[in-house]
Structures are given as structure tokens and as C-alpha cells.
């Protein structure tokens, strides 16, 4: 294979960046370095774990006073709001407390208890890139920031003149060039087995419980919260969404995972496609549902 491909641990997963152009390898290495730096910047701004991130500052202070945020965080919060509106609240970034309770996110000592009535409408985006929380809600951008980081890294490669390449952040990925490409989806209960799917969408993201589930309240759960019930979803199936932007694909997987029925109605307005894999029995049988086949 021509080109250069590297991987680093970032965003709590392995991030792989590839350039397939026929460039001197030193140039590719340098371009990939810069793309990794972009991903690292998104992580530094939007990490829930890092108490110094911009997101942590919002969670600590924005219910007391407005907080100014960077262009990147602003873009993600704006997109999150649009997705919440489009899905009538099936996408909601105020689910952090439920994830903390189940141990998917750390508890920060300086966080006060969150309001139990809050929701995405309590995140106010004010002129001048300022954020205010109308209630003491706590935000987690885990459902969207990874996709955004992928989009940013791809934009960086494209602006640098790269024609063909890809960025894959633990399954949230986007390709540059390659109008039709083959992706492999993991079998939800046998994750080293792969299902090839051909697509013309540049980006894809998958939500599944296979490497991340936890036993919680007597059920095997994955780190996705149903915004209506504030309960964690089952870890059984996997949902992959194909879209033009990775941020959109990433966020739509959360919507489809939480509520496949209502979620499927949201796909169309984003020209997206969803493929759900659901194991039927312990024998390894698996159902494939594809919105493009409907």
C-alpha cells in the first residue's frame, strides 16, 4: 500500500490518520503530525475528564455566569443544539450525571449535584460565543466531539492539499477522496468479526457496547443515555450511521441507539443512512437492518 498511516492513543481510543497521496514520506509524517495536533486540541478543549478543559469550565461555572468559549467548542455546542432540535430532544448533551452514576464518567469533587429537571434547552448559546446554563445541568460532549475532531483533522488535511486519506477515531471515521469505499462493521457480540458495507458517504460512526459495556442496575449497559428516561441503553446491538460529516454521523448514532423508531425519522433530513446489527440469539445469529433498504 502506498502512503503513510499512523496511530496514536487519543480521545480515549486509537486514532488512525492515513494519507494515501504519493508524497515524500517526510511530508506525510509532518502533515499527519499536524492533524494529530488538531485532534489533541479538540480533546484538550472538550474532555470531560480533564478539569482544565473548556467543557469542565462550563460545567463548573456556566450556571453562575456566562462563559466565553473557543470557536471549536462553539461549533460543537451549536451543532448539538441543532441536533437536539431536529430530534426533539433525542440528542441531549446534558446526560453527564447519568454517565457519572454508572461509572462511565468520573465524578469531579468540585461539581455540585446536577438539577434533575434539566435538559438540552437549558444550554443557552448567547451572542459573542458565550454559554450560560439556565439550570445546573452538566454537559458531556462524548457523543459528538469525537466526530467533530475527525472532521477537523480531515479539513486540515484537505486544506494542506491532501487528495486522498482518512481519519479513524476508534470507529468514528471520515475519508477524503475515495467517493465509494468499503467499511467494515463489527459483529456486536463477536467484535473481531467484520461485516463489509459499501458506501458513498464520506463519514461513518458506530455506537455499540462491545468494548465499553458495564453491568449497571442488573443490566449490561453501554455508555448511551436515553434522554427521555435518563437510563442507560442496552449493550446488545450496534448502530452505524453513514453521513457526510463525522459529527453528524456520531450524533445520529446516539439518537438511533436511544430510539430506533423515532431516530429513523431524523436520518432523512441529514441525508444519512443507518445500519443496525442485532444479535438474535447466543448462537451468533445476527439481524441486519439497513435504512437504505427500506
Amino acid at each position, binding site marked *: 500500500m502506498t502512503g503513510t498511516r499512523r496511530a496514536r492513543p487519543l480521545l480515549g481510543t486509537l486514532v488512525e490518520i492515513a494519507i494515501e497521496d504519493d508524497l515524500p514520506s517526510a511530508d506525510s509524517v509532518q502533515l499527519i503530525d499536524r492533524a494529530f495536533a488538531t485532534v489533541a486540541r479538540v480533546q484538550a478543549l472538550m474532555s470531560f475528564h480533564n478539569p482544565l478543559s473548556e467543557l469542565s469550565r462550563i460545567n463548573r461555572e456556566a450556571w453562575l455566569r456566562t462563559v466565553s468559549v473557543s470557536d471549536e467548542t462553539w461549533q460543537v455546542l451549536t451543532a448539538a443544539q441543532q441536533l437536539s432540535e431536529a430530534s426533539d430532544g433525542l440528542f441531549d448533551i446534558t446526560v453527564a450525571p447519568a454517565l457519572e452514576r454508572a461509572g462511565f464518567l468520573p465524578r469531579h469533587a468540585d461539581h455540585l449535584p446536577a438539577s434533575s429537571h434539566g435538559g438540552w434547552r437549558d444550554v443557552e448559546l448567547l451572542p459573542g460565543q458565550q454559554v450560560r446554563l439556565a439550570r445546573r445541568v452538566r454537559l458531556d460532549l462524548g457523543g459528538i466531539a469525537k466526530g467533530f475532531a475527525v472532521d477537523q483533522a480531515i479539513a486540515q488535511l484537505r486544506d494542506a492539499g491532501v487528495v486522498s486519506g482518512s481519519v479513524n477515531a476508534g470507529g468514528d471515521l471520515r475519508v477524503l477522496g475515495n467517493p465509494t469505499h468499503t467499511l467494515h462493521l463489527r459483529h456486536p457480540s463477536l467484535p473481531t468479526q467484520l461485516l463489509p458495507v459499501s458506501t458513498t458517504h464520506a463519514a461513518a460512526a458506530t455506537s455499540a457496547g462491545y468494548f465499553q459495556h458495564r453491568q449497571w442496575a442488573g443490566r449490561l449497559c453501554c455508555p448511551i443515555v436515553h434522554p427521555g428516561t435518563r437510563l442507560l441503553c442496552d449493550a446488545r446491538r450496534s448502530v452505524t450511521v453513514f453521513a457526510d460529516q463525522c459529527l453528524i454521523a456520531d450524533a445520529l448514532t446516539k439518537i438511533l441507539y436511544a430510539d430506533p423508531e423515532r431516530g429513523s425519522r431524523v436520518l432523512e433530513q441529514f441525508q444519512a443512512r443507518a445500519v443496525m446489527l442485532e444479535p438474535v440469539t447466543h448462537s*451468533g445469529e445476527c439481524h441486519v437492518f439497513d435504512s437504505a433498504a427500506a
Partner: protein
Amino acid sequence: MNDDFRKWWAVPAIIIPAMVPAAIAAPAFAAQYLTQEQAQQALFPEASRFVDQPLRLTPEQASAVEKYARVRMRGAEQPVWRVEASGRHLGWFVLDEVYGKHEFITYAVALDASGAVLGVEILDYRETHGGEVRQAAWRAQFTGKRYGDGLRLGEEIKNISGATLSCKHISEGVRRVLALHQVALK
């Protein structure tokens, strides 16, 4: 129930049957990212010399590392390079491996002279545990079907959508490398 969705559910879903043992071997997902030399260059672009200094721990040092890192020491020798730029000590390049339930990863950690992490690069990633044979069987189900279109066995797998491992094993590995520095490279 919403019509669109009923349509979706009404699609006869492709049912992937339980696997049958197959003798055909297709490669599991594997990626070779960097050779050791390329990783050295990527992590220390300004270096002029990498001095091979494999580390052999005494039993006391090994148990000190385990205690500090809360991870078991594997193997007696750790590949380590002392990194120099025109005689100046820049830091250390440490090669390491981690094994997960499904994967095997070779990676390198760059430490500066004081032992702070400068960067981590993956050299080699392989998914294992009999995946080769099982995967061939699973993929064979799609031959001639919609999902299998364009698929050839042995086709290179470039992009997998679906989380890889959580990076827990690599974080543990880096913690162990930091402990190694503390115990034997300081």
C-alpha cells in the same frame, strides 16, 4: 407506529447464521503503522543518535515497577534506546507491547531526559484470537449478497467503524514505562 420505520423493520433483515467452522483463512484486521526506525524519527525528529540500551531489571527493580505501576512485569528485558542530539541527551525511546482480549499492540513511548512523556506512537496493531478463521466464515455468508458486494476474501481491511479497544491497555503500558524510568533510567 411511524410508517417509515415500519417499512424499515418490514425489510426482511438479512439474517447472519451462526458460524460454521471454515478452513479458509483470511487475514484478521492488522495494521503496520511504523517500523521502529520510523517511530524513532517521528517521535524524535531532531535526534542524531539512538543508542541501543536494552534494560534488564533485577528482581527487586521488577517488583518495584510492578508496585509503582500496579501492572505485572512481563519478560525480563525491555528494549530501550538512549536518544541524543549532537552529544546532548534528549530522552528515551522505549518499545513495548500490550495484549488485550482481542488485540495485540506494539507501541513506543518517547520520554524526555527528565522522564516526562513526549509522545506515544503505535507501531503495529493486530486483532487475534482465532479471528482469522471465524471471520472468513462470517464473511463467506455475504458472498453474493448485498453486503458482500465487491468483497473478496483476503481483501485489505482499511477502515473499521466500531470502536477498537478502549485504550486502557495502552494507558497501563505507559504507566509501566514511566515506572521503568523511575526505577531504572533515572
